């Protein structure tokens, strides 16, 4: 990727740089999100059990979710991770402070995270574990609150045992998919000149100094090539004595081809995310009531069948079909790469495609149910309050006629972007252009088939 295509935002906007150098720039928004989070948990625990009248459901699963998947992830990548309230208590306990850089060691046992868990597998299984209960979590305020509280407690426990933000990097089920899709974002934190880092011996960005902490995400910014690894906390910007860290604007999707070799855990994250978007579109947005009953834990044996099917689809059926496409591509390509390598590398085409699928799915319920937010803003617990005079706002679906066309408008560019990525991968694994042109076709067929299923669900 050409470095010239980047726009150095901090060089262009010094005020932005001054803002990011402030120690308050991360904790202040964290405190604000933590306040909303606390209200969501309290409303979930003590408010009305009617999900559509409870702040804990509406502001987490509609308002926050819409902000995250429609705006923050596509445009800013991991910016949410920088202001997320879930790891905040753990991180502040470790640091024994919130805003100011405190001296001394972090309050943690400082254990090293096990090497075999330094990947996304825990996040993959954590996400799936939540996903099979999602119909219950999305609609029961109390369950939702306990899940959120559980994540905070897990974050605190891990911060006391392990170094820095291992929870965010290796455990958080939300952080996993934000990381995957952050590779598409047109925003990146990078070093200006890797040579400056290579020749700089003290590595303040890793160890920390009086201006900030060593990278909480356990990375060496000098070697940072993909957004998936960076939580945008800007500690390295504060600690770098050589002024070598910056924020760039860049072409979207720049990271997808940055790695020389893809990773199976990331590939599976792509399958799981696409599979979940597809299954949620069927279960939650579709008209099949019996399926909603199964997912809703009405009867345990049926839910067990649903969960089994859900897991099988995400872990075996979808990847299996993709494996088949990769196997045909393998026969059509030069044969210089293994089938496993092709399977993994082609799966990065699922990143733009999966994000488009999630945006399309989210439009289907966010616009329909978004108006509940006005009512719960005035009456967060469903106790009959009317704080801002909006408690009586009726349910008003937003542009219901337009939603299917918005969904097509998102899915189609997602498909084209994915096919283009598949072609770049095919080029990498082929000797000639015509060979690459043929080798990409099976994966293109897979992507088209899934797109047609989405179109059938939304419009057919």
């Amino acid at each position, binding site marked *: *990727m*050409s470095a*010239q*295509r980047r726009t150095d935002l901090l060089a262009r906007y010094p005020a932005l740089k001054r803002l990011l150098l402030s120690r308050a720039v991360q904790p202040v928004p964290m405190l604000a999100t933590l306040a909303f989070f606390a209200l969501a948990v309290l409303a979930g625990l003590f408010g009305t*059990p*009617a*999900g*559509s*009248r409870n702040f804990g459901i509406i502001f987490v699963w509609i308002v926050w979710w819409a902000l995250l998947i429609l705006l923050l992830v596509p445009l800013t990548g991991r910016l949410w991770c920088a202001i997320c309230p879930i790891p905040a208590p753990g991180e502040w306990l470790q640091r024994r402070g919130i805003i100011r850089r405190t001296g001394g060691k972090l309050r943690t046992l400082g254990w090293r995270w096990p090497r075999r868990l330094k990947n996304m597998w825990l996040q993959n299984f954590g996400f799936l574990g939540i996903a099979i209960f999602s*119909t219950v979590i999305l*609609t*029961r305020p109390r369950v939702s609150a306990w899940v959120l509280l559980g994540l905070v407690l897990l974050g605190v426990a891990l911060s006391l045992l392990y170094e820095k933000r291992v929870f965010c990097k290796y455990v958080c089920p939300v952080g996993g998919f934000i990381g995957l899709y952050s590779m598409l974002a047109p925003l990146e934190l990078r070093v200006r000149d890797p040579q400056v880092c290579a020749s700089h011996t003290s590595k303040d960005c890793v160890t920390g100094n009086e201006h900030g902490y060593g990278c909480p995400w356990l990375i060496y910014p000098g070697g940072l090539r993909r957004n998936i690894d960076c939580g945008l906390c800007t500690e390295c910007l504060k600690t770098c004595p050589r002024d070598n860290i910056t924020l760039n604007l860049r*072409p979207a999707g720049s990271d997808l*081809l940055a790695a020389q070799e893809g990773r199976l855990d990331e590939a599976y994250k792509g399958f799981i995310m696409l599979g979940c978007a597809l299954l949620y579109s069927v279960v*939650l*947005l*579709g*008209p*099949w*009531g*019996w399926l*909603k*009953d199964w997912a*809703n834990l009405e009867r345990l044996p049926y839910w067990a069948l649903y969960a089994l099917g859900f897991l099988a689809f995400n872990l075996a059926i979808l990847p299996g079909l993709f494996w088949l496409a990769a196997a045909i591509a393998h026969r059509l390509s030069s044969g210089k790469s293994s089938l496993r390598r092709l399977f993994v590398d082609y799966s990065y085409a699922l990143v733009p495609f999966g994000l488009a699928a999630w945006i399309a799915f989210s439009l289907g*319920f966010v616009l*329909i*149910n978004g108006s509940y937010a006005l009512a719960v803003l005035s009456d967060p617990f469903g106790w009959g309050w009317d704080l801002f005079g909006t408690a009586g706002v009726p*349910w008003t*679906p937003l542009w*219901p*006629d337009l939603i*299917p*066309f918005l969904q*097509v408008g998102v*899915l*189609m560019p997602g*498909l*084209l972007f994915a*096919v*283009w990525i598949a*072609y*770049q991968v095919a*080029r990498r694994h082929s*000797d*000639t*252009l*015509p060979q*690459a*042109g043929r080798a*990409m076709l099976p994966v*293109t067929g897979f992507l*088209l088939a899934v*797109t*047609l299923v989405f*179109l*059938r669900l*939304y*419009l*057919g």
Partner: protein
Amino acid sequence: MKRFPRRRRITVWLPFALLALAVLVAPIPRLVPPQEREITISLTQFEFSPARLRVNQGDRVTLTLAASDVVHGFYLEGYGIEERIEPGVTKRIEFVAERRGKFRYRCSVNCGALHPFMVGELIVGPNIPFWRAMGLTLLALAGLLVYLQRTGAGYEEVVNESFEIEEAA
């Protein structure tokens, strides 16, 4: 690997763009004469039965709605219809299905945990928006494939070309 042509071949896209325009605006007449349709829908937590209705454009549709457990609502997208359905009291709704496509009907009265996902589907055929979307998707994909096969456009080529254009400007 040999070097690839740098300039984007806009001309490759032109036939596909024209075809896409044709898919978007081509007039499609009514294929079936309008009929009278009487349909009974029962509403229970969290399901409409039948969950999918198929009618043709121009049909005069009479829906009889009956709730069997709790109070539900019936909101039909695209037709501006909304009714409250009490258990034991049937409601009749009449309308002419003039708009083609898929329209969801939803419960509009909070009826329990899965209320926001209580959905049914009315398909007014021929479902032209669906077929237009399919056609557009296939054309866009075909256009991209032809473009890639003809130009061999790669990541670096696209990036460098864009950069040169920026510099020249």
